[in-house]
């Protein structure tokens, strides 16, 4: 394997990790506030569809992005309504949202575009372009001519869509918000002991809704990235389990932002390797691509089993807050 191929796989890892990272951080906000969110998948999907559909009709990917975020936030609102306002089961609400998105996107796409539940191909301003950093080459054939440093710069660092850079920026931002701001303190507290927050005169419902809506924004970014940057349009079920991989990454990361970045890059790497190779020869063994695809899930089970460092979720997670008698 030559250097450029390795770089390409890392480059592709970064691109494939981006939607995972955004969704993972979405889950982080929600679950840190004590609201389990297995509806990440559905929100990504809804955002993917609406961003592609609106980007196509308006011709502007930015308007599409806003539409995707709005769609995802609407589902977040529904999740909040069910699990915060009406104190329903958060897991069931998440399951319902996943199905709702899986069904509605196709139903609406079919009516709107009559293309078997997909949007038309996006091109030009309806799609996010890759940003070529100053001095970087953009085409693979030009990159191949460069020295190793130039290749790293041009291939790995340059040439991603703006959302990739944005996602990377959100990681330190999330860390800062969580540990250095009043909002973060309250957010973490409401996920650990909502009664403490409530008696301190802060609205549990308000905080949790804020967290859930932030999750909506981030899932919206993830979905829009999927449909308008990584792909060029929406196809049925295009989230393809990314919401669950993000959830897996969140557990893997033990609900911490920097760890989340590492976990998502790792899972993105699995994905990239699986994309590039059908089977991987490891000495005598041939690792089938299906194993690579299942690897993130297997890792999470191992982590959950406590075999490598126990993952302890926020203590009030999953439980609706009911004032005690």
């Amino acid at each position, binding site marked *: 394997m030559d250097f450029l191929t390795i770089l390409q796989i890392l480059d592709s890892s970064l691109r494939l990790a981006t939607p995972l990272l955004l969704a993972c951080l979405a889950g982080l906000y929600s679950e840190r506030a004590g609201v389990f969110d297995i509806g990440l998948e559905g929100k990504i999907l809804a955002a993917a569809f609406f961003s592609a559909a609106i980007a196509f009709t308006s011709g502007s990917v930015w308007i599409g992005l806003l539409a995707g975020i709005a769609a995802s936030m609407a589902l977040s609102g529904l999740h909040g309504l069910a699990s915060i306002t009406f104190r329903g089961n958060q897991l069931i609400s998440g399951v319902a949202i996943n199905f709702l998105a899986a069904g509605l996107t196709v139903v609406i796409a079919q009516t709107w575009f009559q293309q078997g539940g997909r949007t038309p191909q996006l091109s030009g301003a309806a799609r996010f372009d890759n940003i070529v950093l100053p001095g970087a080459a953009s085409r693979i054939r030009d990159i191949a001519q460069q020295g190793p440093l130039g290749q790293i710069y041009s291939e790995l660092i340059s040439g991603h869509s703006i959302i990739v850079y944005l996602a990377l920026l959100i990681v330190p931002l999330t860390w800062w918000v969580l540990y250095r701001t009043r909002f973060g303190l309250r957010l973490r507290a409401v996920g650990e*002991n909502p009664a403490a927050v409530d*008696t301190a005169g802060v609205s549990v419902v308000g905080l949790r809704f804020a967290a859930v809506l932030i999750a909506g924004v981030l899932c919206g970014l993830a979905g829009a990235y999927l449909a308008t940057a990584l792909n060029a349009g929406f196809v049925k079920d295009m989230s393809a389990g990314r919401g669950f991989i993000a959830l897996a990454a969140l557990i893997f990361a033990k609900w911490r932002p920097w760890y989340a970045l590492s976990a998502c890059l790792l899972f993105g790497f699995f994905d990239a390797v699986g994309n590039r190779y059908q089977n991987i020869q490891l000495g005598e063994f041939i690792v089938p691509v299906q194993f690579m695809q299942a690897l993130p899930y297997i890792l999470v089970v191992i982590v959950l089993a406590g075999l490598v460092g126990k993952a302890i979720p926020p203590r009030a997670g999953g439980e609706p807050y009911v004032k005690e008698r």
Partner: protein
Amino acid sequence: MTTSAPAIELRGISKAFGPVQANKDISMSVARGTIHGIVGENGAGKSTLMSILYGFYKADRGEIWINGKLTPIPDSQAAIRAGIGMVHQHFKLVENFTVVENVILGAEDGALLRPSIAKARRLLTELSEEYGLKVDPDAIIEDLSVGHQQRVEILKQLYRHADILILDEPTGVLTPAEADQLFRILERLKAEGKTIILITHKLREIMEITDTVSVMRRGEMTNTVRTADTSPAELAEMMVGRKVLLQVDKTPATPGDVVLSVEDLRVTQGGVERVKGISFQIRRGEILGIAGVAGNGQTELLEVLGGMIAASGGRVTLFGAPIDIMGKEANGQTRRARGIGHVPEDRQTEGLIMPFEAWENVAFGYHKDARFNSGPLMDHAAMKADCVDKMARYDVRPPNPRLPARNFSGGNQQKIVVAREMDRAPELLLIGQPTRGVDIGAIEFIHKQIIALRDQGKAILLVSVELDEIMGLSDRIAVMFDGHIMGERLPDQTDQNELGLLMAGVTETEGAA
């Protein structure tokens, strides 16, 4: 200033939870710079009233006046703004946060934490010097003792400049020494002009520290009197609405053979040793009472003997034959098979399945008995018949076997558990907090049943935090503190003071010194 308006005035507060009227048209007023006590039986509505004052619940009707101004309190935020602080019966602390983080939570100065934390740190040092409330600002809450956690709760209120402080049963979890310390702090706060409301079940504390006291009964506020003008007996009478006889009639015990023998029992839970090597025996026809502040290992003792948790060491024998307290046989069903009955401390989460109907609960734990089964299936008719019979004999009201357990009142729920566990005349009865949250009538009934079982020659291990109950029922009293048995006493050769010292971990020699 003496003529100024009362710090707190409640007018006509009412609150219902579904069919339960928790507060009925309550009016109350507390003068500034005083300590006001509220007493009342379990479920009388004390906590509800205070939660309304703190904006935690919304009253159905009524007004709140603070310092002579009508102050609507729709939420806790409003209460905090009105200068009200509350220390709840169950602490409201974020367990894995530091002390400082807990103190500033909800009262941060700005959007960023850094300045608030610095300020809180300064203030904490000042306050702890001023009031003697020493707490490490960077300690994690879950590493602190209960007493220290309570200090954090109080510090929280002081940090918020609360003028009115509500304390809901603050001494329930404290040793007498810790309680004394708390009262010294309260005195200081009062001297500074703060107003304090104190809810407690311990009439001695009321007499010791309050200026005025209100009595609640069944959701109503029946009396408010100056503490100096009343007595514990009078308060008790006001609380229950009739004269209370705290003594139980019983003949002296005639202990026989040893039934239960416990040697060097140790229990570790969650990495903490809760029971640290205790030994005792119980004989036929004898009640051994275990006294102690909640959380000193009594619960674990009962749970090990009842087979709910495994011990980490020691030896237990029943009639000389060993009981497996650590291995596979350690479970409730093998214990029942050996003739051990167990009335658990918490009927709602342990003794009963609340959504199950009474007849299903009457077989709970005994559901594998032949009499409740026919072949592979359970015999529902037999279970119902058994339930009807027990309900009649134990005076469960209403005697309806089809009613879910949650729809019985606390006392009747307890009677169902007692009926189930006592009716088979177990050789050894483990009984925890038998009358917690139960009204006087039911208390008398249950106490009589316990004595009757003893008089049949059965052995009884009674665990209760109510000293009166322990003193009234036990033939011997052992006091637990910090996982140890501090000493054994005979009820007629001791008094509440001595037991109180033992409960605080003060041994004879120290006490004498």
